Every structure is written in C-alpha cells, then in structure tokens.
C-alpha cells in the first residue's frame, strides 16, 4: 500500500483495477490549505493518459505487475505468441501491444513480457538484437545524395539506413531503443 507522500514519477499504481504509471507529478499546497498531489498517469494497458489530483489521506495499491522471460514463437495476423522459458506456458500480445517491437521479433528471441495480474500487457526487448539483411541495393559509388549510408530491409521487414559496405545476407546488430544500426556481426 502506498500513501500520497510516496507518489513520484515512474511509480506504478492501480486505479479502478488497471495499472497506471505516473508520468508527471507535481506537489502543490495552497497557503494554509491541504497538500495536493497532481499526477498525470498513463494507463499501462491502453496507453490512455489521465489527470488526477490526490490528497494526503488517499492510499494506493501497487500495480500487480511482473516480468517473465519468454521466447518469441510466431505471429498470426495481428497476434504475437510467446512462450515462458521456465514453465512453457504461452502468452499472446496484440500488434498494438507489441508496437515498434515487432521490428525486432525473430523466432526464439528472448524478451521480457510484462504481466498485470498474470495478463500480458507489454514487452521489453533486449537492448541489442542481431538481424539479417534481406534486401540491400548495391552501393552506387559517388552517389553523394545518399551520403555515407544506404537503406536496407531486414528479415523482420524493418527498414533502416546502414553503412554502404553492408550487403544482402549480412547479419547486423541494431539498437532496439533507437532503431539504429550498431555494427556488423562477424559470422
């Protein structure tokens, strides 16, 4: 149980049986008045942002969240399936919940799946993922327009710019936080 004085940015609490993360927090106290804790919160399931003002007598349940290490299995239409590496139970996230992470999901990739009351609601990727280039145009020497990078497509369908020496079939490391090329993988 949290008290109002525990409220701070990034704290995860439960409101109306849904998990929220505090994304903005302001303490205010009009002269001689009561302390007010003004929060902007994001619903961790649907992303909706709400404004709430709490008082010092308010208490909060921590959101019942846990992360499980899971392996990506496959996707079918807009559903992405994962398997818990310890108990082999399967979980499913929708395309909306997976979001940008879909650019990095290759078979057997290990990720952390966020569960709220045992229900999967989100995904955390490793910071770096190795992916194979499936389409790359040959580097046109002296092409000054594109500078020192060229566009390629990866096995997940993700498109990004890489240095000109990267060829089709090469494996590269991508930073999942920025979506940018990091290095060529030696095989």
């Amino acid at each position, binding site marked *: 149980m949290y008290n109002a*004085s525990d409220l701070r940015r990034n704290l995860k609490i439960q409101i109306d049986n849904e998990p929220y993360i505090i994304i903005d927090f*302001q*303490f*205010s*106290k*009009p*002269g*001689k*008045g*009561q*302390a*007010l804790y*003004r929060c902007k919160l994001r619903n961790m399931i649907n992303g909706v942002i709400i404004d709430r*003002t709490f008082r*010092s*007598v308010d208490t909060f349940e921590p959101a019942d969240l846990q992360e499980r290490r899971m392996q990506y299995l496959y996707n079918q239409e807009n559903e992405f399936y994962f398997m818990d590496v310890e108990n082999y139970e399967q979980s499913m996230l929708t395309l909306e919940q997976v979001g940008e992470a879909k650019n990095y999901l290759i078979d057997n990739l290990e990720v952390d799946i966020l569960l709220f009351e045992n229900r999967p609601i989100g995904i955390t990727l490793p910071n770096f993922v190795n992916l194979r280039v499936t389409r790359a145009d040959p580097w046109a020497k002296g092409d000054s327009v594109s500078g020192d990078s060229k566009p390629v497509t990866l096995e997940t369908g993700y498109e990004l710019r890489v240095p000109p020496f990267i060829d089709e079939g090469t494996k590269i490391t991508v930073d999942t936080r920025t979506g940018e090329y990091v290095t060529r993988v030696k095989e």
Partner: protein
Amino acid sequence: MSPGSKNSSSEGEQRRLAAKRSNLWLRARLLQAIRHFFIEKDYLEVETPHLIPSPAPEVHIDAIKAGGAFLHPSPELCMKRLVSAGYSRIFQICKCFRDGERGEHHLLEFTLLEWYRTGAGYMDLMDECEEMVLSVSEDLGFGAKIHFQGHNIDLKRPWERMSVKEAYERYASMPMERALTSKRFDEVMVREIEPHLGIPKPTFLYDYPAELAALAQLKENDPALAERFEIYMGGLELANAFSELTDVSEQEARFERERLKRKQLGKTVYPMPERFLKALAHMPDSVGIAFGLDRLAMVFTDADKIDEVISFSPEEL
C-alpha cells in the same frame, strides 16, 4: 557504476554550483535589500527560537519533531508574544520547517520573511508590500518591470486587488460556496485560479473563508470571511497575511477545533500554546505577514524551481 563515476559526480557538483552562482549572488543581495528596507522604516530585526514546544495547531501544517520539541513551522507565535509586549514593528528572516512539503515550489526547510506592525489594517499592509517589493526590485537594478516564467510583471503601484469570491467568479468552474461545501476549495484554487493570478501585475487575493484562517481576525461586517490575503506573481504564491486575531477565547476555541481535526486525521496533536494565549490578551490590533523568500528569489532570478535559488536541495546532501 562506470569507472571514475565518483570523480565525475564531484565534477557535476562543481558545474551545478557554478551555474547557480548568479542566482545565489542575487539571493544574497535580495536579503540585504530587504533588511535595508525594514531598517529604514524603523523595524527591529528579531530572532526567535527555531526549537519550540508547541507549534500553532493548524490542520494542514505539520511540524518536524526534534529532540522532544518541534522545529518551528513559522515564527508566528513568538513574534506575536513580542508584539504583545509592545514591540510595535518587528521583522525576522529565518528558516522554517514543514514536514511533507517537497515539490518544485516547496522545501521542507525554507526561508521566511515575517513582519508585524501594530495600528494598521490588512489593506495598509498591502500598501507596504507593494512598497517593499518595488523598493527591493529597484535596489537590485530591475526597476518596476520584471520578467518571470514567460510573463512580464509590472510592479508599479497599485497592484491588482481581488477578493477570493471574485476570483472564483472570474476563473473557477463553480462558485466559492460550492467549492467549500464539496471540499474542493484547495483543488479548484490550485488548478483553476492560481495560474491566472499575478499577471501582468502582482495580485492580492483577499478575504478568505473564515475556516481557512485559524489565526486571523474575521471581517466585522461579514464574519464568514477572514481579513486574510495572499500575494501572487506570475501564478506563484508568495505570501500569506492577515489582521491578527486578538480575542483570546476565540483563538483558544479555534486552536481546539484545529487540534480535533488533526486528531481525526491521525496527525500529531501539539500541546496547546498556553504562553502564547496568555500573551495574546495584551496584543494590540496588528497585522502580520509571512513572505516566502525563496520564492521571491525565484521571481527575481526567473527560476521555475525553488532548487535553483538555494545552494543545496535536500536530495543533494
């Protein structure tokens, strides 16, 4: 931790404090200018103890316990004892301590300028506030125009004077009476009213509901209101003032009510400040004001956080 992180954090502190240098200089000059103003006007600078046995029982002000006593949340009670003994014009600049108050505009330990004057009403005190801030601003070389958080603020007299009721009518989604009965007065004040106050001139917000002023005198022609005012500049609350209540039994009854409210909320109930109540019997009509000096320094340095005008925040200790 990366190697050398200890070293880089001490470099961080060097940089941080160097960046604060101009603010800390201005803060020091502000203190000097304020002292100069009050000394010129024949006020006596006093110092009263920070460690006291019984803070004023107010429901929303929590004192910090220290060695069997409390750090004073305000110098009010001791200063009024001086006023009651014939000290007719006194001021004090001191640290005050309030538990749980930490935010962009709040510090558990903050600096207050508090002054008292006998034989004057709260409207006279408004005049004196205008005079003080303008004089200090001129001393600091700002003149009558300052820039604070995107607003040009004109300090030229007279400032805006608006009753709390009017402010509710002008800015709030409900009338003051409804905000009070639905216990949303503070919330509406913070969310809907305060952001409009003190632009482009400082605002005196006056005549607060009586139940929000435990130590203030009520208005003669309307006892539902207290002769209390607050000062705002650019949406920031800077000071709280009132005509002092001098009726001992009324004061005792109000303290008793505040103590009961504290008990109901499970908060520490302070001992009744008996010596203060005894002295109050001799207190002449007077006005008093608590002016937040850190916040005034914020206004003159155009700072958006109180941390920018102090050397060390509690988290940096």
